[in-house]
């Protein structure tokens, strides 16, 4: 049975003046996110990524005060509620220590209910490959390393050998290696009910889209008129981050292969941006579920998980992602490969670089876009990554290595498969 992934954001108000203590607590635990005494995520076998971060006290666009918030966000295998129960059974003491700094926290006995009640929906999310679990990722990394070791040990034996002969030797090695017993069978394909359900969802939504299309066409000129009016009058403050702020952000980056990205901003005032933004997030979610659900987000192959989450009555949005490589490279990917998509998604945010016709300009202005991101980025004092040594490309290659163990192959296919090592 296919195990799908969920993203669980839990948001809670921080008690007055507790924010410094809470931050210190999280920073301390964040030194060792897998094994710390508060929430040792390494003991949770189904968590891909998890982070805690703080939204500072602020004022909204109308000047009303916003209390500081603690956000917890986990990317997991399986249903959210099972995860929360498991989390509470593993780390009740630690979570109690954390959430006693939050408003309305009822104490340990009410921990699970508190987390459930403070879980909010994600507006959109991206999963690199839907259905690929943490244990599978770990196992397939072990498999690849074992085969690499086998190839190293047998190096020199294969001169002039046919690719099929080498593959047969690898298959035999895997078959006989007890620690690789899991790899004797392929990953089970998704069950028919899941496939049918997904297809049904896709076609029902698509059919609804076709039915509504005439209405959309009728409304399109008015929408475009409003879009242009907003685009020509929106003010985009271009603020240059200080070196100190850059270093504060960079302190959390490039300790391993993967990095966290956390950012938050306000949605531009008025119904046009609000409802356009909501629709775009809905559309994003639809596309990541049905189209960009395997190792490739419109050409970007370095993102493991990403979430768009509305808060404060959809007047604010935070965006989180877990990506491979440096921030500079991540931003260059955005600018070079999918600037139009970034514009579509984020141009409803205050101060986003000026766009034209929704997709033009905006993130195409490299340096202004990079500054915008730096000015909206947040530090995540606690960030856990379950497979920090693997890029999304590595993980996908490992899965292909495993898939290539089964079934018949001619020499050309076997040669292509052997190039994965």
């Amino acid at each position, binding site marked *: 049975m296919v195990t799908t992934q969920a993203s669980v954001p839990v948001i809670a108000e921080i008690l007055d003046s507790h924010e410094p203590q809470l931050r210190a607590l999280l920073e301390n635990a964040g030194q060792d996110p897998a094994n710390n005494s508060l929430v040792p995520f390494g003991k949770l076998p189904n968590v891909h990524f998890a982070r805690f971060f703080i939204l500072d006290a602020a004022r909204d666009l109308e000047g009303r005060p916003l209390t500081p918030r603690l956000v917890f966000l986990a990317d997991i295998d399986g249903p959210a509620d099972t995860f929360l129960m498991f989390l509470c059974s593993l780390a009740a003491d630690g979570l109690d220590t954390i959430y006693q700094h939050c408003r309305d926290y009822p104490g340990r006995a009410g921990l699970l209910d508190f987390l459930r009640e403070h879980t909010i929906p994600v507006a959109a999310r991206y999963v690199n490959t839907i259905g690929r679990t943490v244990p599978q990722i770990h196992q397939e990394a072990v498999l690849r390393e074992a085969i690499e070791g086998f190839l190293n040990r047998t190096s020199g034996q294969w001169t002039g050998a046919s690719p099929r002969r080498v593959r047969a030797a690898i298959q035999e090695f895997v078959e006989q290696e007890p620690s690789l017993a899991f790899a004797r069978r392929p990953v089970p394909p998704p069950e028919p009910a899941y496939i049918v359900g997904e297809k049904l969802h896709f076609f029902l939504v698509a059919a609804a889209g076709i039915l509504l299309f005439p209405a959309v066409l009728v409304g399109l000129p008015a929408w475009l008129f409003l879009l242009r009016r907003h685009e020509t009058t929106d003010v985009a403050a271009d603020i240059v981050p200080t070196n100190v702020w*850059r270093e504060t952000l960079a302190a959390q980056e490039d300790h391993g292969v993967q990095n966290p990205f956390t950012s938050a901003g306000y949605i531009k005032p008025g119904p046009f941006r609000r409802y356009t933004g909501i629709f775009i997030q809905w559309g994003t979610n639809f596309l990541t579920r049905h189209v960009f659900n395997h190792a490739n987000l419109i050409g970007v192959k370095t993102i493991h998980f990403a979430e768009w989450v509305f808060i404060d009555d959809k007047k604010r949005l935070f965006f989180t992602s877990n990506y491979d*490589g440096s921030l*500079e490279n991540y931003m260059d990917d955005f600018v070079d490969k999918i600037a139009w998509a970034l514009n579509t998604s984020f141009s409803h945010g205050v101060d986003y670089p000026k766009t034209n016709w929704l997709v033009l300009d905006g993130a195409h202005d490299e340096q202004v876009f990079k500054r915008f991101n730096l000015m909206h980025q947040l530090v995540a004092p606690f960030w856990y990554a379950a497979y920090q040594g693997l890029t999304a490309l*590595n993980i996908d290659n490992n899965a292909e290595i495993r898939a290539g163990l089964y079934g018949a192959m001619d020499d050309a296919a076997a040669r292509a498969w052997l190039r994965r090592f």
Partner: protein
Amino acid sequence: MPDLELDDIQGLIARGYPDLKAASYVLLQIDDAVRAKPWLANLATQVTPGPAKPTDTALNVAVTVSGLRKLGLAEDVLDQFSNEFSAGMITPHRRRTLGDVGDNAPERWLWGGPNTPTPDLLLLLFASDQAALEQRYAALSADLAKGGVSLVLKLDAFTDLDGKEQFGFADGISQPTIDGLSKRVDIPPNTIQPGEFILGYVNEYGRYTDRPLLDTSADPGHILPLDAQSSGKADLARNGSYVVFRQLAQDVHGLWHYVDQATQKADGSSDPHRRTWLAAKMVGRWPSGAPLTLTPDADDPTLGQANDFAYQYGDEFGLNCPIGAHVRRSHPRDSLDPDPGTARSVELDKRHRLLRRGREYGPPVGDAFAPKPPGDPERGLYFICMAGNISRQFELIQHTWLNSTKFDRLYDEADPLVANRAPGTANFTVPADPVRLRFTDLPKIVTVRGGAYFFLPGIRALKYLASLLLMSS
């Protein structure tokens, strides 16, 4: 074609002075800014401009952020320089991404580190021979004390290795051609917008890279050029560039001993062809410079300057030039996402190019296969390159392409030549049919010995800096 103000551009951007075989890099400190002003004003008149093709000596001048500060540039102007330049090369984050940890840590550097004097100015001095160089340097150094500046360190490049770098490979073949700089016509993938290397011009995004712009009131003498974007401001950086300078020690014996041992025959004897083959696989070019992609089995000196080639068609899997080879990492041409083999991939590559102007130092190795003699002097490369955007150009190449163990589709190997060696990353894969070869336990061959980011101003900007009134005076 962009119209470049060549007369205002320092000559080193236009050419590397290949005929001026001798070179020194002189790091200076400003002790007395008041006296340094007339000295610098005089020096600015001696700077070799872009159009000049000197046959005797050439002089170029660069400055660090501390130098600009001492010369009296206001903080709000300094803030407009790039973060890389103003924060410097040795921030905690840059140490991680540039690989400047362990043996490479700035604490061990000969210059530019936290324990050595911070250079304010850099004189790049070139001459036709050693005697001419010494003569010119003597003339320059005679004025230093009077000019309120003192010598931090003088770095002497080795005269000439006949176009090879210390490992014995031809170097500097793949230089970008700056569009509009000369009449030289190059292939489109290698013709780069001037803004990638010269500030104040359009870059590969069709935009102007951030740079310090001043109210014209800050330039009452109208020394500076005006902002080409018509903001009405004076452009302090137009015709200037950023300079990345790193002193890289090369363990030439280490490289050749490794490839010799790794390719020994069954009887334990050396295999000269095979060891050169392995070193060439690491480099991506043969000693003559011939690219492995074009001639995979043996060197072909007729291809020594070949630069019109790509990877995707014909060498997609690295069977000729390994994915992890140094030249493929540092200049992936058409091989990276999006859409390898297409114009989109080349477009991306063009946004990550460097204009290299480095030179070798230290005596060449006699016999690289002999044991390393005791007291063997340090040798290596004064790596010098220019970039309009250090972060997107030099730092991305250094981190994401060279130091990353995950470049392209790799897993656990950093650049076989220049990268630091974290545990588990000292591997090198040579793709082959039916099974790749894997070399392990690569030695650390290159060690960083010093470095800093500089700003190479346009000549008018240099005169402007010399004219600045000190805040204190």
